[in-house]
């Protein structure tokens, strides 16, 4: 890390982080430092603790050891509402139980910005419409969310996240249910947000998309080991093969690095 990167204030910082699920340690001594404009991709096999890590980084789960700081303060040093204005979490897609309009589902993202006794204002409404436009579904604003396809619901969830206007986006499999075109659109969208000063941490399954969009990579191996660092260092065939338990080969195609299972 260069000295100039060290001087930039960290958006998200994890020190000596250890995570456990029941009796099992998922990782230990994880250090992570994310500055505005960066994208971290979390990779690892099933059950290796990617979601647990994301929830811990979101301050929604106490770490087994270590500390997570958002803009210099531990989560408990701010109110949940103040935290919610700074960071947003896209959970893995959930089953919707109650019908509501796409616009209402998007306005949920405005919750931490609206006072307890107020209704959402015209500004909130405009922000929600802009978010829906950005994911290409403003035309569906009046539709019942229960009538949407899985991919459309995922885009509504992303719109709600945009409406929250956080500095840090934590995304759990944001590409689920999306076809190729929207996968790239969503990744480009978050790259744009990062360019405008946000930070992004996301769990994805596709190593090749990770290689294309990650500045840093956290690689969990499911046996308690973890590697974190610049994407170029971590994304090595040997390291990936070790974590995923299957040999890979690296190739260059049209200037993109791709990994193919052997």
């Amino acid at each position, binding site marked *: 890390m260069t000295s100039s990167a060290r001087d930039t204030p960290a958006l998200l910082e994890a020190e000596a982080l250890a995570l456990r699920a029941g009796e099992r340690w998922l990782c230990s001594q994880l250090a992570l430092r994310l500055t505005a404009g960066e994208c971290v991709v979390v990779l690892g096999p099933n059950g290796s603790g990617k979601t647990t890590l994301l*929830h811990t980084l979101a301050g929604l789960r106490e770490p087994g050891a270590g500390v997570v700081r958002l803009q210099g303060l531990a989560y408990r040093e701010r109110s949940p509402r103040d*935290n919610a204005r700074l960071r947003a979490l896209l959970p893995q897609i*959930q089953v919707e*139980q*109650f019908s*509501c309009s796409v616009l209402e589902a998007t306005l*949920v993202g405005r919750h931490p910005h609206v006072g307890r006794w107020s*209704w959402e204002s015209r500004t909130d409404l405009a922000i929600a419409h802009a978010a829906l436009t950005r994911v290409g579904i403003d035309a569906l604003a009046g539709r019942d969310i229960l009538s949407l396809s899985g991919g459309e619901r995922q885009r509504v969830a992303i719109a709600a996240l945009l409406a929250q206007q956080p500095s840090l986006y934590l995304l759990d499999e944001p590409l689920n249910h999306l076809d190729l075109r929207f996968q790239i659109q969503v990744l480009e969208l978050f790259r744009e947000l990062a360019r405008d000063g946000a930070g992004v941490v996301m769990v994805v399954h596709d190593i090749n998309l990770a290689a294309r969009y990650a500045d840093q990579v956290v690689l969990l191996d499911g046996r308690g080991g973890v590697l974190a660092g610049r994407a170029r260092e971590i994304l090595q065939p040997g390291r990936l093969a070790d974590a995923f338990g299957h040999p890979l080969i690296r190739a260059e195609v049209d200037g993109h690095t791709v990994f193919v299972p052997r």
Partner: protein
Amino acid sequence: MPPRASVLLALPALLLAGLAALAWALASGETHADWSSVADALAGGTAFDAAVIRELRLPRAVAAYAGGGMLAVAGALMQVLLRNPLADPYVLGVSGGAAVGALGALSLGLSALSADACAFAGALAAMLLVFGLARGDGSWTQTRLLLTGVIVAAGCGAVVTLMLSMAHDARVHSMLFWLMGDASAAGRPWPALVLLALAVLACLPLARDLNVLARGALGARALGVAVERLRLVIYLLASLLTAVAVTMIGTVGFVGLIVPHLVRLAIGNDQRVLLPASALAGGALLVLADTAARLVLSPLQLPVGVLTALIGVPVFLFLLARHYR
């Protein structure tokens, strides 16, 4: 989102419907009163009709209104708490506890007043039991809460059956009537009406949190909602409302399940409007049902729970088919 005018108009419309239902309840019965004698009775008239209206019909209608409103609000809260559109106020065993208490008192031949006290004690006991068991290790998952509640309710059901099978013949009728739900025994329903109003007011500042919670607990926590505390508050509030309603009018079925759904179909799922609208609609509906229960086979009076069940079952099946198509 600021509600559409049509949605906000639903509240005064439902209030008017409730008042109309109350007026009908006061005027109807074995002796039909015209509007002037109803007004005379409410103004403190001394005619025989006036006494019937003021002493018998009015408390009964108000009890039905308050009870219906409380069950509907409790049902709407339970549906959010369990994130399950098919939840109702009784699903977590509060009514089962009340039934055990009330039927225990009735089978021992205690007075109606002590039956009420036992019903309320039973409801609170069931509420605390489910709460304690479901939170045993500090976690508070919907599935665990639901399963604990269902099991406690099933246990109460068995005890109720046992008491019915062992009860003295002369007492079985009053026990069955209590189980079916019956507003005729309600003595002083006014405090319940105040409680309903206070409960709805208490819900309003939490209503947007509930909107967020209805879409999932994890997302709600990420949006800054204190999910654990919110769940605790709505669990206690819904249970308390159910306990009071069941003590007052018995385990009237389906109001707490159907009313929130009907309101949701009409004005959407924004809890800020849904909760007060459910209170108003639940009250109006139960007054109508109770009055109809008095009139259909007059002079024979049906327990109001039979009528709400006869209306509720087909509506419920329709909603079920619609939800899981």
